[in-house]
């Protein structure tokens, strides 16, 4: 039988160390909504999502109450809209009508983000893909909760540099379209290499084409729990350090697995995966940078940081994988800047630069995430940063992503505040040398030699 110490340990994790289930995300396929008539398509999309997810929020709240564990977000991901809208949408504005439908249905079912305003263009772009990508600035500035992502590369296909170049422009245009709001539209746009089909985390979630009609994916978190556990093993060797992270990740993930199964049963929707991520929030103590500090670097960004992050990421996966029947999504440590107080402190202290963050993305679970840069950064420079990050993903057979926010009207050293979970942060310095000729070449970068495994 459970004893009082175990009960206290769990409840301390929840009450003092910010243990929570970060999101229950319902993936919904929209393939059966496709129509060549735009009005019919929008109507079908609204009805499919509403009927699938009308009980999602209430179910999440019930589970949270019964188990005493906060479930912070209830969200939806849908099939990439470039595919769903391809028959009906003849212009970018046609795609924007779908974004508005998604925004409306998301609000009507009470969720806080909906992902999947997306295109998969890792090798080439169809006309519909291009129209959707070009519609992103308008779609994100005229909706509140719709998130967009574009997969522009993969280990199997190489990197679509035309799409990379185009997205440099799209990010700048999105920043301009939302300039009255600190360019916050860009916080809802992610560029991927090797995007997973079952990611429950925003802004990059979409419901992959290989997925079932509906699915429940759950993202757990708990940087504060790992940090507290590590405080007890200060000065111990790497074996003890790694074992402690693994055990903690196991416990955290078991809660995610329980919630995922319970949500799946109650909603009558199959369980997909648990995403074993350490996802920080701006709350004090809920920081991945603080874990790195606890492991032994003065600030995130100091020499040793990449190695510390590599071991953290790997141990989280090892511990978590044993705790869940299916793992997937992004799974690992996120290193966003504006959502993590420790990262913000590291930037302000001069310890952490964009270049060091890029190195860290070689071993973390995602990429350059939530980084505010000067508003006058050229679109070709943004495309160059994207290309670098995509290359890391392609060569290392891992997911990488870029979520940069060129904040119009702000310059290096200024501060920007996006509010809530998105946090605030300093505008980071960007290398000023040009890559125009490189990104303007056009075409695609071929797949690496080690992708040919057939």
């Amino acid at each position, binding site marked *: 039988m459970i004893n009082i110490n175990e009960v*206290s340990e769990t409840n301390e994790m929840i009450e003092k160390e910010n243990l929570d289930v970060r999101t229950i995300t319902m993936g919904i396929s929209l393939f059966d909504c496709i129509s060549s008539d735009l009005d019919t398509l929008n109507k079908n999309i609204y009805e499919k999502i509403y009927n699938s997810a009308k009980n999602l929020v209430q179910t999440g709240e019930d589970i949270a109450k019964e188990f005493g564990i906060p479930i912070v977000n209830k969200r939806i991901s849908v099939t990439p809209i470039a595919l769903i809208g391809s028959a009906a949408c003849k212009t970018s504005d046609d795609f924007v009508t779908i974004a508005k439908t998604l925004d409306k249905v998301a609000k009507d079912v009470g969720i806080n983000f909906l992902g999947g305003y997306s295109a998969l263009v890792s090798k080439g772009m169809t006309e519909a893909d291009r129209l959707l990508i070009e519609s992103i600035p308008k779609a994100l500035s005229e909706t509140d909760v719709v998130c967009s992502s574009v997969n522009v590369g993969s280990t199997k296909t190489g990197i679509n540099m035309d799409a990379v170049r185009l997205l440099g422009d799209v990010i700048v245009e999105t920043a301009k379209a939302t300039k009255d709001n600190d360019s916050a539209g860009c916080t809802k746009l992610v560029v991927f290499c090797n995007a997973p089909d079952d990611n429950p985390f925003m802004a990059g979630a979409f419901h992959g084409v290989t997925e079932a009609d509906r699915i429940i994916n759950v993202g757990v978190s708990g940087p504060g729990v790992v940090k507290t556990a590590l405080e007890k093993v200060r000065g111990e060797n790497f074996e003890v350090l790694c074992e402690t992270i693994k055990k903690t990740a196991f416990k955290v993930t078991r809660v995610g697995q329980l919630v995922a199964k319970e949500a799946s049963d109650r909603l009558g929707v199959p369980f997909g995966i648990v995403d074993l991520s350490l996802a920080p929030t701006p709350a004090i103590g809920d920081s991945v940078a603080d874990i790195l500090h606890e492991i032994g670097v003065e600030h995130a960004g100091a020499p040793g940081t990449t190695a510390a992050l590599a071991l953290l990421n790997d141990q989280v996966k090892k511990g978590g994988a044993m705790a869940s029947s299916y793992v997937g999504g992004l799974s690992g440590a996120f290193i966003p800047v504006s959502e993590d107080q420790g990262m913000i402190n590291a930037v302000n202290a001069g310890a952490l630069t964009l270049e060091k963050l890029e190195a860290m993305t070689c071993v973390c679970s995602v990429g350059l995430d939530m980084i505010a840069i000067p508003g006058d950064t050229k679109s070709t420079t943004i495309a160059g940063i994207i290309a670098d990050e995509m290359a890391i993903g392609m060569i290392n057979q891992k997911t990488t992503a870029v979520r940069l926010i060129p904040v119009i009207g702000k310059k290096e050293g200024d501060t920007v505040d996006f509010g809530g979970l998105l946090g605030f942060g300093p505008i980071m310095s960007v290398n000023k040398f040009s890559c125009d000729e490189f990104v303007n070449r056009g075409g695609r970068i071929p797949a690496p030699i080690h992708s040919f495994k057939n």
Partner: protein
Amino acid sequence: MNKIIITVVGKDTVGIIAKVCSYLADNSINILDISQTIVSGYFNMMMIVDMSKSSADFMNVSDSLEKLGEEIGVVIKCQREEIFDSMHRI
């Protein structure tokens, strides 16, 4: 068996267990196990109860006990046992 863990945390005072137990008895909730400690004046109790014959549903019991806790000046939480089992038992 429908096992619920009730935890009571707060400043020690007369009659905490009595009040919680009489509420449980009134609602036909059977107590399977109680453990309790006092650390530097703070009362920390855990009860494992079986709600399968309860006259009230989980949400009602949870809300009522929370309210009872406020009256006594302690924090009372009800959680289904599975969360602890998941985390601490393989």
